């Protein structure tokens, strides 16, 4: 049997790695990849707690489906925005897209 704490620590570590990626990277696509890692960590947590409570409450898996759908939608729109910004300003460094003009 695998202890619950192992899963939860792995999920926490994944979340913090994603957080570092979001905060520290310049490339906008790299920031999106960090967000994906965080969402995956959240999914792992939800499933672990569903199993911890004996796999009776189905709220965990239902929520995971919603998170998965929201993550897919967010990546699609985010990448469309990044490519559109790239066409205008020819840069995707997050700290160079800082003017609302244009």
């Amino acid at each position, binding site marked *: 049997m695998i202890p619950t704490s192992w899963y939860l620590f792995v999920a926490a570590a994944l979340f913090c790695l994603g957080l570092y990626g979001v905060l520290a990277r310049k490339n906008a696509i790299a920031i999106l990849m960090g967000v994906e890692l965080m969402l995956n960590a959240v999914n792992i947590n939800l499933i672990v707690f569903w199993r*911890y409570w004996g796999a009776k409450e189905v709220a965990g898996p239902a929520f995971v489906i919603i998170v998965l759908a929201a993550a897919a939608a967010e990546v699609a729109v985010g*990448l469309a925005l990044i490519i559109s910004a790239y066409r205008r300003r020819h840069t995707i460094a997050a700290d160079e897209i800082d003017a609302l003009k244009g």
Partner: protein
Amino acid sequence: MNFLQVVFILTSAVTLGAAVMVVTSHRMIRAALWLVLALFGVAILFALLQAGFFAVVQVVVYIGAIAILVIFAVMLTRHAMQDEGAQVNRGWWAAVLVALGTFAGLAFLLLNWAGIGSSLGELSADEARKLIPQMGQALVSADAYVLPFEVASVLLLAALIGAIYIAREKNPQV
């Protein structure tokens, strides 16, 4: 240390290693490929948790669609940023501190939780099979989760329309 524990340790090592490479890699295409490996590792973790449906859905949605989309975007914008030079912005040390602090906080919370010493029991095959019908019923029954389900579909519709509009060429002959 039984077989499943060994598999878990290997899988989580691969997942976390790939995640580290995602957030520190200089070349974006390498980072995208490491992301694919990390997502696959998470799918294996779902399978270890006996949520086989989610392992398969993770591969279909994340690896089969999202990761390919990310690779596309990386290829389309690969002349935007040179892959040499600093890939992190000026406040990266603060980001390290925040990440470490978050992990410390989460670890503290977990260690003070009552169920920290527990072990996840095995699900019987029948119980594991009941997940999909139960979840399907929960997502469409009025006293369960039909409202988040419908809101998620509206969100997907909005994302679809928004992405088409943003990515469209200007002056179209619609």
